[in-house]
């Protein structure tokens, strides 16, 4: 029972960490809380089913296609909503409202394209559960864990080892100073929106065999993802990973030992407690 709980907590924690990642990257570079982000995860799941099941594209190509499709949607969102509103001199508040509206457009548009019912997404490694040290595990859990490792690892390399990644970090620290040294701030904003959306989309593809591909899954993931990012410390990679895992474990253990009914309400309580006691997240040094 305990081992089983740990395995499912790791899976759920990875899902939250992958979602939190996109928030953190966008927030760090632009200070925008992108409420639409959970919908990118949803779109990734939906497009994944379309490519893999309906069009019979091989799985590796599905991953690439989902990455590109949802990435382009993220870029389009930045170009069509965020940029024009910023140019109009509107406040950060207006930008956050715009992300809410974009998210609702995706959430209410998706049923028109894919129908209102959940779609089954076949796991690429088969449906036979794996038995690891007495705990039955969905094969997809392995895919999710691997994706988490790859996403965080490659983003770490990107931010620490490449010039482009370092310019994103420079913009995060001070957009004006970054502009002074010749960094194209607009391009960085476009890049983080596209990258976050693309990674979110692939995360959606990875989790869909467990959760099903549902047009209604976006908002819940937004809440869990932002909460995870805040718990760990908004805007840092380590924070997103740690926050996601912490939230996954807390949620699964509360559901397993106390009650599964009020899972979402408990998450909210945790969020308030963190904001009250340690608003900059557990990883902060202050």
């Amino acid at each position, binding site marked *: 029972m305990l081992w089983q709980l740990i395995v499912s907590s790791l899976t759920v924690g990875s899902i939250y960490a992958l979602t939190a990642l996109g928030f953190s990257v966008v927030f760090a570079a632009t200070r925008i809380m992108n*409420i639409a982000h959970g919908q990118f995860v949803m779109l990734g799941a939906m497009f994944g089913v379309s490519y893999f099941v309906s069009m019979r594209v091989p799985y590796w190509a599905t991953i690439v296609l989902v990455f590109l499709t949802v990435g382009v949607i993220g870029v389009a969102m930045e170009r069509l909503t965020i940029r024009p509103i910023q140019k109009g001199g509107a406040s950060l508040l207006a930008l956050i409202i715009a992300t809410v*509206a974009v998210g609702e*457009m995706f959430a*209410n548009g998706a049923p028109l394209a894919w129908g209102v019912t959940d779609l089954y997404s076949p796991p690429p490694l088969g449906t036979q559960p794996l038995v690891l040290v007495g705990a039955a595990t969905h094969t997809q859990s392995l895919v999710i864990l691997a994706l988490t490792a790859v996403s965080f690892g490659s983003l770490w390399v990107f931010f620490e080892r490449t010039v482009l990644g370092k310019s994103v970090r420079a913009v995060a620290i001070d957009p004006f100073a970054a502009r002074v040294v010749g960094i194209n701030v607009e391009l960085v904003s476009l890049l983080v929106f596209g990258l976050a959306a693309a990674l979110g989309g692939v995360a959606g593809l990875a989790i869909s065999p467990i959760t099903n591909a549902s047009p209604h899954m976006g908002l819940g993931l937004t809440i869990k993802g932002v909460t995870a990012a805040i718990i760990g410390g908004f805007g840092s990679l380590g924070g997103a990973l740690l926050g996601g895992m912490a939230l996954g474990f807390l949620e699964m253990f509360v559901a397993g030992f106390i009650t599964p009914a009020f899972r*979402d309400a408990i998450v909210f309580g945790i969020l308030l407690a963190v904001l009250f006691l340690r608003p900059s997240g557990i990883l902060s040094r202050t």
Partner: protein
Amino acid sequence: MKTNALFPGALVLAALVGPLLVNNYWLHLLISFGILAIVALGFNLLMGYAGQVSLGHAGFYAIGAYGAALLVEKSGWSFWPSLVVAAVLSGLLAYVIGLPTLRLKDYYLAIATLGFGVSIQVIATQWSGLTGGPVGLALKSRPSIFGFEIANNLQFFYLTLAFLLLSYFCVENLTRSRPGRGMQALKDDEEAAASLGIAVAHYKRQAFVISAVLAALGGALYASFSLYINPLAFTVKYSVLLLAVAAVGGLGKNPGMLIGAAFVTFVPEMATAFKNYYLLIYSFLIILFLVFWPSGLYGFLEEGWQRIADWSGTRREAFAQARDPALAVPSPEERESLG
């Protein structure tokens, strides 16, 4: 000054007389409009004045609705005390949520309220012993006020109108007084406002609590009007609807909320073909207005009115100058002789 009082006066008069002339269907819509406008006024105080966004106002609306309904139905209270208790409870909850979130910079309130709204919905759905769960809760009768029973929709409309006028009066006065100016200052620049001695966290909290109280008031009215509530009425969709009211009407303008609420209530009725897609359309409208007309329909009207006023004003001055030489601009020689 005279024209300033004339227009609202005519509007109130129309609101008093108009409902006598319309059928039940329109009365129904007018009541929905009034309730939405009350909630939107509070929402605008928070968002348009104090510059904070709540994505969980559906939660406060639900607390008003369930609070009033449960106290009336299960505890046998009368309408007034249950309304007051529900509103106070909602305000207290807002205070507690605002305590950690509103002293922080950035928009943590948006996230916290998003979580709050979903939590309230989860509780309303799961705690079926209290709330009736997904099946919902039916109320037996419309409220009676000081022994006078509100029997039909017309009477309920006047009750709603009274609350709307009272809310409007209070919010308008607040925004024109010291707290309102404080809120506007902190919205523009929190640090500058703080350095001028404005209690930033205090004013943000005040706006949030008042908006939660108004949302609960709207919720209580909604419950006693529709006589049936279930958790589906309080999803995040309602919060998005409020965003649409604010964006379409004009952020930071109290009259704009009336226009926005009217738009959101009446326009879908005229275009029934779009009823199934209304959230899609509203979210599209929010973006459209934010990008192209950030000051909303009210800003549009205001600008048009200003143009007419300017035009007629310059015309009047020109006429006056032509007729009265004393008003004409003095020539340089005349100016010298005047000293």
